[in-house]
């Protein structure tokens, strides 16, 4: 379990980036952290793997205080995938890139090799294993970056804006992959602006604004509230905007995902048809 207790964080410049955050993340959780630019989302992620230490309060990863363990030790448990793969890819081949973390953690060569193979397989990258990461497309490089973190099988996975620049099919694949991970008992935390992706993936949503948590709840309860969504510079998902209008016909407001919308409307429209003489 990752526990944040009254965590505040101030950058050396004096900016208060996080203010009194309380948060629990455990195996099987799927959480989306959303908020305006500069709300403190990435700062929060960096607290979870020890890159930043709280100015006040404390962060516990499996009961260990992050102030007392090194980032390298925490990185085995908490995998943080950065937004832009350009910030971490440097190896000659995809295989070496994925092995980098495992070698840092001191695994035996046989284990490294086995884990690399497994991870490449799981992410559909096996055919590129001897290719240079720099010859791959943006979407593929993002997957290599993800693989390089997943290879050491962290219990907690944090993804920073995983859908940026991805087309719809790539997002669909990512969604399925996340689903697989948290149903295996891993925790997945994603930082994102992508309201439609969140609406269809149905994680627990944490809204962050100016360094404070302003709302926590299911995607349909949080993303269908005008005042919350506006406050963090998001827009409501299309379904929620539609059902905002349709609510005057007795339909619920808190609908964000297209499949639930379909079921509700099927019911309503069949009813309407039946009452028409």
């Amino acid at each position, binding site marked *: 379990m990752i526990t944040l207790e009254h965590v505040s964080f101030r950058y050396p410049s004096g900016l208060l980036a996080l203010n009194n955050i309380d948060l629990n993340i455990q195996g099987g959780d799927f959480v989306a952290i959303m908020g305006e630019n500069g709300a403190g989302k990435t700062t929060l992620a960096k607290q979870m793997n020890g890159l930043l230490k709280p100015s006040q309060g404390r962060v516990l990863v499996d009961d260990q205080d992050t102030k007392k363990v090194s980032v390298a030790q925490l990185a085995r448990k908490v995998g943080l995938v950065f937004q832009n793969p350009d910030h971490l890819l440097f190896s000659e081949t995809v295989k070496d890139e994925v092995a980098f973390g495992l070698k840092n953690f001191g695994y035996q060569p046989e284990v490294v090799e086995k884990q690399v193979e497994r991870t490449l397989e799981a992410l559909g990258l096996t055919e590129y294993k001897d290719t240079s990461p720099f010859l791959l497309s943006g979407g593929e490089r993002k997957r290599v970056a993800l693989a390089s973190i997943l290879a050491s099988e962290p219990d907690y996975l944090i993804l920073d804006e995983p859908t940026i*620049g991805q087309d719809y099919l790539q997002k669909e694949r990512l969604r399925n992959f996340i689903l697989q991970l948290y149903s295996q008992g891993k925790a997945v935390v994603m930082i994102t602006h992508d309201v439609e992706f969140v609406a269809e993936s149905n994680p627990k949503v944490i809204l962050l604004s100016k360094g404070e948590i302003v709302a926590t709840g299911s995607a349909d309860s949080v993303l269908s509230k005008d005042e919350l969504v506006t406050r963090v510079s998001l827009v409501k998902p*299309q379904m929620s905007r539609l059902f905002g209008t349709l609510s005057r016909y007795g339909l619920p407001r808190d609908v964000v995902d297209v499949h639930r919308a379909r079921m509700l409307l099927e019911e309503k*429209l069949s009813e*309407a048809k039946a009452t028409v003489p």
Partner: protein
Amino acid sequence: MSRASREIIVARNLGFKYAGAKKPAIQEIDLSIGEKEFILLTGPSGCGKTSLCRCLNGLIPNFYQGEWTGELMVGGLDVTTQPTSELSREVGYVFQNPENQLFALNVEKDIAFGPENLGLTRGEIRARVDEAMRVTSTGPLKELAPYELSGGQQQRVALAGVLAMKPNIIVLDEPTSFLDPRTAEEVMQAADNLRKELGLTILVVEHRLDLVARYAERIVVMDAGRIVADGNLEQILDEKFDTLEALGVGVPRVSLLWSMLRTDGLVKGRVPTHVEDAASALSSMMTD
């Protein structure tokens, strides 16, 4: 679609293969775009959208080397014989990453940068900069440095910068990828405003149709370097819905919902392209 108006971009059998690449990035492109059109160019990753845009302002073949086939006229100029600096008077290009397209150390100087290259008089440059700042509402930012701006402000400044070149066409290549949804909306509105107020032709490359569907009346869909659909946005969404889904184009969720309900036999008629459309269509079918 304004087929009747003067054609400003005409491509015939256009193709391009980057030096060293195995396959052509774009091929057999036939496209004609009229004045004052607002066009959405979309397709899956790697389909050749960006390459096509690069042809429009001459980055291909001037900046990127490779094999060129067919012909492309932009504003009456043959792209293959004009330097990019000359084409920049015709086509303004806003890139995806706002950080890498602002050069000067403050906003006003950045907007002046383009016109300064054109060898205009100081008075003319002043007038263009002021006009560009007015239309994009960037005046209040003029003393700030690029890194002091938010992503949305940076993109508006980039828009002002190309506007000051007085182009007839503005290409925006995934201009909102790094922005939050509300700011993305603002950038799209700013682009739409340019067409309304100045009569410019706007071409937006975007994965997320829901963001642009409200403004664009025409959609061009690419796959594997070719154009696979081109026409009125509402019509294409309606008739080629399954093709678009299969290509991985993120169709607006309300369109998807409608098409599902239509399959169920519960609704009839054209797929709506945005929320207001869908809401009024569904409302009319409701009995309290």
